[in-house]
């Protein structure tokens, strides 16, 4: 269960990173497309557009994307262009905003429409909204799965402890009659559960670590543009390590409470 829980927690962490990264991309950057002019008066128009964009409140930077970069972006669709190709290429302006959550791309579009008719503002929403929804769902499912695994662990420990209580009933009754306080008897079961939980958690965490390392290694061999960021940060390690630690604490607490509740039934 620790193995499954650790893996699921790792997936939740990765989904969370992707979600935040894509969300920042969605709201933090925009691309302005200026259609080419037939009479070649593009330079003045571009300067006018840049001036307008930089004047919109909330815009941090606005930079023209070099024609060579635009050509490279189009290369997968139209192939390598010859140096003397006279193809009308749109001008692209990369815009970064200060506060992504406070910025409205419609304000920028309205400001541009009066100065540069035909300019379009692309906030990447169409491409990223679906991905963000998917990552959000994966994250929610992963968290629900971790909770379900935790609940299953609690149920398993309750049944195991009850079996232990039934098996050791004569010993428990003897200790009870000798004057052992409930807390003392519960601590014996708690210690046993701690040792078992530690062993199981260590094993589960080790196998999960190997599995995660293998997945991360395999992912480096794939085009990373298709995959979310799999890099593990120190905080992520803490979150994933919290699974076995929580499992051990959960096992101990469950065993203790189960025994205490059972002992109350004795005189």
């Amino acid at each position, binding site marked *: 269960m620790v193995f499954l829980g650790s893996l699921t927690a790792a997936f939740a962490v990765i989904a969370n990173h992707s979600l935040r990264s894509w969300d920042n991309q969605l709201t933090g950057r925009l691309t302005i497309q200026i259609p080419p002019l037939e009479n070649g008066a593009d330079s003045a128009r571009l300067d006018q557009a840049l001036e307008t964009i930089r004047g919109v409140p909330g815009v941090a930077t606005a930079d023209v994307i070099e024609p060579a970069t635009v050509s490279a972006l189009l290369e997968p669709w139209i192939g390598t262009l010859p140096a003397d190709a006279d193809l009308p290429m749109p001008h692209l302006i990369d815009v970064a905003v200060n506060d992504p959550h406070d910025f409205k791309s419609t304000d920028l579009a309205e400001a541009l429409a009066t100065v540069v008719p035909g300019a379009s503002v692309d906030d990447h929403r169409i491409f990223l909204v679906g991905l963000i929804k998917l990552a959000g769902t994966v994250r929610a499912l992963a968290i629900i799965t971790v909770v379900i695994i935790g609940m299953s662990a609690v149920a398993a420990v309750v049944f195991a402890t009850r079996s232990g209580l039934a098996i050791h009933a*004569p*010993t428990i*009754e*003897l*200790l*009870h*009659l*000798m*004057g*052992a*306080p*409930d807390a*003392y008897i519960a601590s014996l079961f708690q210690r046993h559960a701690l040792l078992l939980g530690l062993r199981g958690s260590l094993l589960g965490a080790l196998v999960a670590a190997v599995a995660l390392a293998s997945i991360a290694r395999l992912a480096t061999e794939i085009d990373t543009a298709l995959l979310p960021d799999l890099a593990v940060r120190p905080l992520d390690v803490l979150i994933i390590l919290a699974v076995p630690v929580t499992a051990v604490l959960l096992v101990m607490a469950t065993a203790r409470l189960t025994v205490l509740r059972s002992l*109350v039934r004795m*005189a």
Partner: protein
Amino acid sequence: MAVEVLRFDNIGMRYGVGPEILRDVSFGLEQGSFHFLTGSSGAGKTTLLKLMYLSHRPSRGLVHVFGKDISVTPRASLPALRRRIGVVFQDFRLLDHLTAVQNVALPLVVSGLKDDKLDQHVRELLTWVGLADRLDAKPSTLSGGQQQRVAIARAVINRPRLLLADEPTGNVDNEIAVRLMYLFEELNKMGTTVVIATHNDDLISQFRHPVLQLSSGELIQLPPRWQRGR
């Protein structure tokens, strides 16, 4: 007026909806007293002992142990009372995974008193009951009589104020039985109140102690056998 370590007032006891095993049982045990508890099989001796060592609560009536009314004593206070009661169970109840020494030391461990000096005391007591050569033996390798002596040593190891023994000499020969009775008497001389449940009339007649006799769930208190004649 002598202090009573235990008092039963109009005790009735039944298991579930079954018949009443004990009826209107009333008696008191003065500190330092020694009683035999006798009666035919099914008379209620074991049930009476269970009430005395606080394993069960009565269906009706009042139980006072060491001056405390059990019916109003909080559950959390009962272990401290139980630690002052030593019990020799009829079926010994030794823990099979522990050695004789470890079984005898168990009440000390439960009380948090175990140390090396006490371990020496445990070994001496086991030697005194004739088990010097079986100190580290597991109960399953001991005879019935040897197990009984381990159970007795366990019951007396922490010098209880009240010692209850259910047929403690049932599985030993007469010589060992008398030796064990002398052990109980020694404890009694040091202030321990002793109740021995037994069928053994010969044993009862050898010692000058009063008898609590159960008959069909009712208690009759008798003077020592030597005062009644045989």
